[in-house]
């Protein structure tokens, strides 16, 4: 494994590269979710990336600007920035991995950022992508209010989601579970209305839970209209990005590897 910082001096990103054991089948950039979802899933996806490397994939995990070990603080995290960071990670992997084909994998907001990345890749693999960004933002606010209700006595909870929105509207950051959320992130997420005209790759695999099926089919239709070949599938699994646990969606993983074999690499030893 290699650990390093990459990107412009003004925007250094932390990356972890797991080189493939043996001949490289394909490269894969892993785009993480944001906030506590990133923390909760970090160990599991690090472990998965090590497993993928053992199976011949060259895997790059990175921390978007303002998260993890990368420069900046949570107040600097923006959606457009995360999309650009995904593109920069693809460039790094293309240059350093020796892989002829590169896929972008994204989880939750990381998946949405991957779809919007100004990059050129060979496939997109999206797990439970956040497809309604304004709703996602409202959920972040609800999370803050719910946490106050759990931590404080009911009569001490003075902040409402409306108050938080007003604060953002007036140009001030807010605190959501220790993350400083900027007015810019608020504006980007709440104003988001359409996917880009062109996706980074024309082949897309989108996986989710049964409760996400309708939203996934809607997005798949929209991406198909943009010329993409989209395969969707849902699996029963725990809401694995919410809990700090060892639950891992093995069905998602197996389906993704099989699909990558079909689309990109071929199984180990092929070619």
């Amino acid at each position, binding site marked *: 494994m290699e650990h390093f910082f990459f990107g412009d001096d003004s925007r250094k990103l932390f990356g972890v590269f797991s080189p493939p054991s043996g001949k490289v089948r394909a490269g894969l950039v892993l785009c993480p979710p944001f906030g506590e979802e990133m923390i909760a899933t970090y160990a599991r996806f690090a472990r998965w990336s090590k497993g993928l490397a053992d199976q011949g994939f060259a895997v790059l995990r990175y921390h978007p600007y303002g998260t993890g*070990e990368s420069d900046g603080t*949570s107040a600097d995290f923006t959606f457009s920035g995360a999309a650009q960071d995904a593109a920069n990670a693809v460039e790094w992997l293309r240059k350093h991995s020796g892989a002829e084909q590169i896929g972008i994998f994204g989880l939750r907001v990381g998946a949405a950022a991957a779809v919007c990345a100004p990059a050129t890749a060979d496939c997109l693999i999206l797990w439970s992508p956040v497809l309604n960004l304004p709703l996602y933002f409202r959920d972040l606010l609800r999370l803050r209010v719910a946490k106050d209700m759990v931590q404080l006595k009911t009569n001490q909870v003075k902040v409402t989601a409306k108050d938080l929105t007003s604060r953002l509207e007036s140009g001030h950051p807010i*605190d959501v579970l*220790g993350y400083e959320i900027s007015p810019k992130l608020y504006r980007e997420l709440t104003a988001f209305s359409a996917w880009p005209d062109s996706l980074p790759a024309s082949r897309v695999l989108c996986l989710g839970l049964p409760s996400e099926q309708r939203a996934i089919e809607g997005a798949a239709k929209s991406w198909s209209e943009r010329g993409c070949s989209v395969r969707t599938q849902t699996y029963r699994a725990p809401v694995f990005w919410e809990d*700090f646990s060892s639950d891992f969606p093995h069905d998602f993983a197996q389906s993704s590897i099989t699909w990558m074999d079909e689309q990109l690499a071929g199984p180990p030893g092929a070619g």
Partner: protein
Amino acid sequence: MKEIVSFSCRSWKLHGVVHLPEGRTEKRIGVVLVHENINTKFGTHGVFRKLADALAEAGFFVLRFDDRGTCDSEGVCDLTFLDRVADCRSAVTFFRNRYGLDSVVGWGLCLGSSVAVHSSVEAGAARECFEALVLCSVLADSSIVSLPQYGYQNVNLTSVLRGSLLGGNLLRKLREAPRKLDHYRKNLPKLARLIFRRYTEREPALEQLRTQIARVGQLLAEYQGPMLLIFGENDPYWKSFETRINPNDKLGLRLKDHPPSLVLVKNGDHTFSSLEQTQEMINASLAWIAGFRNGRIPELGKSYRRIEDAVSLAPVAD
């Protein structure tokens, strides 16, 4: 300024990040941050990263690291508590030697605090020991330990029943029950399944963890160096520490040569998960570690409820 580092513990290669102090310092003091559970070295809401930046700015060397076979460290490992203790000792030795440190302070959160105490009290060599400890939300109650396979939920039936039936204000709980029905409907079946699993399947790692955590109270009493305890006042771990681990100073902490200082962060939770709480925790840690460097443990600010020298280790009024 940060450096990416790696060091070994037995055959494992561990990955870490060192924050270098800004400017020259007379005494070279290092702080090793020991994270909670199987988590990242930057921590929930980036708390270790923020603390490390603040400590480096104040003139300290800081090491954060991932345990063997987890996160950004090499390989894959089903980590046990004793693995973590061994990794921590290797981290201290590496840090001390590589950076020529005069002394090393251990700073832990939750399970990380328990690891820091274990690795210091039972260290085989002086170079593996922490000269001082800052323990946040220390996990010392073996009845509430859990593992990732249980989603870190408390799966000890006695403790769950005690917490849900006897803990807190019963009247308030009943009043709020209708509002929480959805929450109960969603979580109770899952909790029941986990508890069933805990009692029907043998889980040696959980048993090892329970055994080791049960010793933390005694190790706190045995530890000879200066110590700061930080809890969030709303953290159930504080209540557990106060009522089960050290009621009426059962451990004799006030009789120690260096009685521990205690900070309760107002309205604080287990991981200090708001910007305000985080800042209070960082301020307290900084002030105390700076005092340790200068040979004088400071009085902490008025914004804290505090008990100097841990007289009773019970909360006092503002």
